[in-house]
Each structure stands twice: as structure tokens, then as C-alpha cells.
């Protein structure tokens, strides 16, 4: 790696797994700045060490990985969160992505896939598994069908096509070939589906806070 190494923080409540992932990444030239075993310390430590990428498990003993993801991405603009969690935790993964995570990798992914995903996350790409694409696609369709979600974002036809192919396990390269697009354009489409969802989620949270008076300072 020509420039400085990508700095990483590993958050997982299981020490065997946490230390294993940390070692895998160190061996491959990443700078593992810190590890954390629960959500509150993850937020605290991330503020201090400011890693490029936080590898976040969602199934944490104390506190939720989703909340930690929300706090870290809101406070640290330069830090990206990559969810590394067990498959099957559908709603948690979707919530984490809406809260600001840039991608999701299953724990069963190989070391090569992990290294690749961390590298892509660090440069700002969205890392999608087929499973996450299915969840995001489902979330847009749920919002489109819900009458109260009038301000919800919509997918363009092209974005829908791209997401469906990601959900069917195709790589960005394969999708680019199939749809006759550039590789970069495919990445941008995936990225934009995620950004719209995250922006909408932030707006909704702010509206909720205002409606319920959570924005006023209790000290006043």
C-alpha cells in the first residue's frame, strides 16, 4: 500500500471472533487501532481513535450495534461503518444501514472478501451482499406501498434493476456487462439507493424528535 494504511476498529462482543478478525486484518497490512466489546465503549473509543472503518457486529451484549452505528456516523464524518454480522438478523441489518452503515458483510465471508470489503468501504463505496440488496429493495417497496410515507424516497427504474441484480448475487462487473453500463455507474447507483435511505431516515428521526419535543434542552 503506497499511502498510509487504512485504520480499522473491530467491534464484537465475542473475544475469539474479535481477536481473530483483528489479527487477519493486521496480517494484511491494515492498522487495527482499537477493538471494543460493547456499543457504549465502541462509541467512546471511536471518538478518540477516529478509525477509517469500524467493523460493527450488531449482536452486542450491552447496547445495540444499530445505535452505535448511528452515533459514530453522525459524529465522525470521516469514519465509515461496515456491518459484519451473522446472516438472518434482517431487521437489525436494515436498521444499521438506515442509521448510516455503508455496507454489510456476513460473518461467513472469507478473509479475502473481508479485506476487499474494508478497502472498498474506506474509499466510500457501498458494500452490498445479495441479502442486504434484498432488504433495501424490500424497504423501498414497503415505503412505496405505505400511504403515510408520502415523503419517502423512490428508486429510479435503473436503480431498481441494479439492486435486483445485486440481490441475485451478481458482482458490479457482471451487472455492468449485463446492463451495458460502466463499473463506476453501477457503484454509483448502489451508493445512491443507500444515501437516499439514510437521508430519509435522518429526516424522519429529526421530525419525530421535534414532534415529541425531544429537541428542546431540558435544562432551560
Amino acid at each position, binding site marked *: 500500500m503506497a499511502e498510509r494504511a487504512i485504520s480499522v476498529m473491530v467491534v464484537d462482543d465475542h473475544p475469539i471472533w474479535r481477536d*481473530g478478525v483483528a489479527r487477519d486484518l493486521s496480517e494484511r497490512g491494515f492498522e487495527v487501532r482499537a477493538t471494543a466489546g460493547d456499543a457504549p465503549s465502541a462509541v467512546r473509543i471511536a471518538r478518540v481513535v477516529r478509525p477509517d472503518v469500524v467493523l460493527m457486529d450488531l449482536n452486542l451484549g450491552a447496547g445495540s450495534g444499530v445505535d452505535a452505528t448511528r452515533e459514530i456516523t453522525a459524529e465522525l464524518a470521516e469514519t465509515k461503518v461496515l456491518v459484519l454480522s451473522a446472516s438472518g*438478523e434482517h431487521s437489525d441489518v436494515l436498521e444499521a444501514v438506515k442509521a448510516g452503515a455503508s455496507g454489510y458483510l456476513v460473518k*461467513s465471508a472469507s*478473509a479475502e472478501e473481508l479485506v476487499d470489503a474494508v478497502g472498498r468501504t474506506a474509499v466510500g463505496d457501498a458494500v452490498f451482499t445479495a*441479502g442486504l440488496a434484498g*432488504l433495501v429493495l*424490500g424497504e423501498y417497496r414497503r415505503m412505496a406501498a405505505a400511504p403515510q410515507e408520502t415523503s419517502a424516497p423512490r428508486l429510479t427504474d435503473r436503480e431498481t434493476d441494479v439492486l435486483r441484480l445485486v440481490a441475485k448475487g451478481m458482482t458490479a462487473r457482471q451487472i455492468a456487462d449485463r446492463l451495458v453500463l460502466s463499473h463506476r455507474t453501477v457503484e454509483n447507483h448502489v451508493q445512491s439507493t443507500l444515501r437516499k435511505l439514510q437521508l430519509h431516515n435522518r429526516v424522519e428521526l429529526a421530525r419525530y424528535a421535534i414532534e415529541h419535543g425531544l429537541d428542546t434542552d431540558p435544562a432551560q
Partner: protein
Amino acid sequence: MSSPRAVRKDALKPLWRAAVLLRAITWLFAAGVVLAHDGEYANTVLAWGTIGAMALWTVATSVYYLRRSKVALWFTLVDLGVCCALMCMSRLVLTHDQLTVQVVPLVPTVWVTAVVAVGAVRSGMVGGTAFGAVVSAFNYGVRGYFDTDLTRDFVLLVGVGFVVGLASTTSKQSAERLAMAMRAEAATAERERLARTIHDSVLQVLARVRKRGRELGGEAAELAELAGTQEVALRALVAAAPLESTANGQADLRPRIQVLATNRYQVAVPATPVLVPECAAAELAYLVREALENVDRHAGDEARAWVLVEDLGDEVVVSVRDDGVGIAAGRLDDAEAQGRLGVARSIRGRVAELGGTATLETSPGQGTEWEVRIPMRGRNCG
């Protein structure tokens, strides 16, 4: 939170209390009637003696019915016997004139209604109706004739037995259902606890063994493969929600497809339930299984597959894609000989029965892709 057993036991308590209260109140009425006719009876001492016996019996049965968690049938039959015996005493208490011409009430009068309620609470509609009929029979027997008034008593007694019995049966059934629901809830909670434990311990270790073993290679890689297979199977098991149908015959399609996930087969679904008619859920799961078995047999050892479930509101789309060897356009005859198109025909037939469409796309080296669309509007199990 009370236990399911306690729920069932407590269900009849209010009815037993009501039956006991009814007996106490009707005893006061009977005592009042005897007081009103004091001195007119053939045997006044025996009249008051009967009222006294009724009081004792009221206290004894009240204690029994309120204390016992399970009331014995034999005791209610003894209760019925005692009440009928006390009715018979009226033949010695009342004068012949009072019995037949003046139609003065029998000494226990409406007090006997309480035993009909007892039979009904204990044994439901059948018990209540039978107790009502027996008491009415004694009512006729003691008077020694039939008339409209006595028949009215008959209708009322049997009616009370029937209605209270119905109430008793209904509360027993509701309590049974409530207990079942509580058991199901407890089972779900237990299942979630297990899933969490498995996730936090066994799965983490298996994942680590698989990862590290694969990197070490050789025999360790074989062990890693075994660990990986178990890891995926276990994940699918703890992730899949129980296969339950809603009241109107709708079922969530997701868990039925998710259990098919393995090392090589990934499943993508929405985060919210995909509700389809129960029969369509079973058929679609069967289709996907068939398509994946086909991948297993024909697409090559290295082939992987992805299943995508989409809910478009008016239709459900299920896609199965593999990255295997595919089928060349000119080799459809071979494919047919290999049995691959047999599966295709079977899938098309099943989809057509659900009113949907199935398309198959394939080319050499590009794998195969099934897309099945089933309309959901107004469809139900046939």
C-alpha cells in the same frame, strides 16, 4: 404472570362463586316463605327442620365448592340427591289442600335452582340440562299431578341448567385457548433465548474454525468445510421464524425459503413478512427446493445459487439464479434427455396452477435463472 395451569383452574371460579351465592339467597327466600305460612302447615316443626337442614347443607356445599380446585362428580350427585330428598319432605309438611288446590310453594321452593346451576357448572350443558330435568321430575312427583305452572317450572329449571352449562363450557374452552396461547408464547421466548445463546457461543466458534481452517489448508481445510456446513445449517435454523399461518390462511413466505440457505445457496428477502395464501407458500417453497436441487445436479460442483423473494404488493416474485454451466441453445435435446427440462416442465405446471408465470433464462457459462411471478390479488387456496 400466572401459569397456564392456573388459568384453566381459575376459569370456573366466578361461576362457582355465583352458584354458592344463588344458594344462599334462595335459602333466605325459602325461609321467608315458611315464615309467611307459619302455622298453616300440617307439620310446622318439620317445615322449620327442613329449613335448618337446608341451611346446614348450604354451608357444607359452599365450603366444598369454594375450597376444591376440582369438584368431584359424585359430590354434585349427592348434592342433587339431598336437594330432591328435601323437596320430598314437603309431602309431610304441606297439607293435601296446600299441595294441590292452594299451590303453596314446596318448602325448598326456588332453593333447588342452585343445585341445577351446580350440575351445569360442573358438567356443562349436558349436566345442567340433566340436573334441571331431575329436579323438575321430583317437582311433578311431590305434587302428584301435571299442570301449566309445574310445566313452567320444568322449562325454567331445564333452561337455567342449559344456559349456565353453556357459560361453563364456553369459559372452559376460552381458558383452554388462553392456556395454549400462553404456552406458545413461552415456547417462542424460550426459542429466542436458545437462538441467542447459540449465536453467542457455538456459531462464533464454528465461524472461527471454518475461517482459520480454510486458511491453514490441507486436513484443516476439510475440517473447516465441515464446520462451515454446520454453521450455515445452524444459522438457518435459529434465524427462521416458526412456520405459522395467520387466522385467514395467510403465511409468511420468508422462513420457508430461508431454511433452504446453505454454504452455496444464498437467500435474499425483505425485512417485512411476505404474506401469501398458505397453499401458495408451500408450493413456492417446493418450487425453489426443486430448482436448487436441479442446480445441485446439473450446474457443476462449484456452482453457487441466489434466491430472491420480492413482494410487489399485487404479485410476489421469486428468482433463483445460479452461476453454473448453463445450457447451450442447441443442446436442449440433451438437456431434455438429462431430465433438466422435466424439472422445468414440472415447475411451469405448478406455477400455472397458481395463476402465475415462470421464465427460464440460460446460456452456456452464464448459469440459469428462473423467475416466477405469482399474482396475489384476490387469490385463495383452491
